[in-house]
Every structure is written in structure tokens, then in C-alpha cells.
């Protein structure tokens, strides 16, 4: 009968794309902030 897919740690009703915070196939929850914001060189 399959699985209740809402229990896999993905917010299937999210208005945002899931792939940006996808923690991977083994992860039970989205990742914490991992977005690589690149900033202008002058700030480095």
C-alpha cells in the first residue's frame, strides 16, 4: 500500500521549490541555511 509520503520530511505543499533546501535522499528534514550567497568582492 506504499507509504504516507507526507512523513518523509518534505513539505509537499510548499510554495517554494524544495530542491534548494533538499537535505538529500537520507535526510528526514530540509537543510538549515546552506544557500551560498556570493557577495561582491569588495566585501571580502
Amino acid at each position, binding site marked *: 500500500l506504499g507509504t504516507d509520503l507526507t512523513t518523509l520530511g518534505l513539505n509537499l505543499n510548499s510554495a517554494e521549490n524544495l530542491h534548494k533546501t533538499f*537535505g*538529500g535522499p*537520507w*535526510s528526514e528534514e530540509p*537543510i*538549515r*541555511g*546552506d*544557500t*551560498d*550567497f*556570493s*557577495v*561582491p568582492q*569588495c*566585501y*571580502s
Partner: protein
Amino acid sequence: DLGTIGDNLSGLSSGGVHDHMFNLQMLEAAYTKLPQPKDSERSRSYIPKHPAATPASYPQAQAPILNNPAFWERYGVDNIGTDTLFFAFYFQQNTYQQYLAAKELKKQSWRYHRKYNTWFQRHEEPKVATDEYEQGTYVYFDFHIADDNPQSGWCQRIKHEFTFEYNYLE
């Protein structure tokens, strides 16, 4: 090679393929060596490029509360202020703090432009809005270098007739 697959045996008949039991054995062994979440995370420690010497009485390490989402959500714009959010974003790169500051800025209707690497906020409703872009007057966050240097600093400027293409929207 990129077309459809042949019959459902093609995977078993191609070279270098093992038998079923071997595959299961190898999988069971790999099960104890799963990649961990931190295996794909960049080292989160923030290493200041030019650390300023501060008196020993000052905290020498960042307060853990800065990595707590509640701190940023609860104190939001009223207490932290936009400039501080921008400071955390631009000067705490590759840290969770940067992500939390970005989240807070987004909540306050700032939008990050990936080509200019700059935050924009609508100054008024855009004059034109299509599926691909919007156009209008925006405030954007910038850093200006004054002639007499000490006056340099963060600033916000107005930009008229700016086109914000959505494929640059982070």
C-alpha cells in the same frame, strides 16, 4: 546512450555488472558508511579576514544565540535594524547567520539580485510586471566610499526605471 533503455535486462547484461547477491552484500556494507549531512556542508566556521584586536574583556567568540533562528525572528526589524541584517549578510559569509539574516530581509520585502549581488526593495508598486520581470522604482542597499573616507558606509539609494529580471531573483 541517452535514448530509451532496451528491454529490462539491459542493465544486467552490460559489462562490469555483478550478480544479485553480490550487489546486496555490497549495499549492506555501504549501509554502515552513509554520507552524513555534514559531509556535504562547507566548514561553517567564519574566519574573519582581518580580525580587529579587541580587549580581552570583550567576547572573543560569537555568541551562540546568533545561530538561533528565534533571535532573528523575534527581534526582527524593531530591534536589530536593517543595517545590522545587512552587516550579518555581507560580513558573516558562509555562516548560518548569513542565511538567517537573508531570511529576515526577505520577510521584510527585500529581494536579492544574483547578478548585482545586491538587495532591492520596491519603493512603490512596479509600473510593469510580467512573468519574466518587473520594472519600477526601487531602494537598494549599497556601500559608498566618500572622498574623505571616514564618511564611507552603508547607504540606501533610490533607483528609478529599474528592471528586476526574475531569473536573477535568488
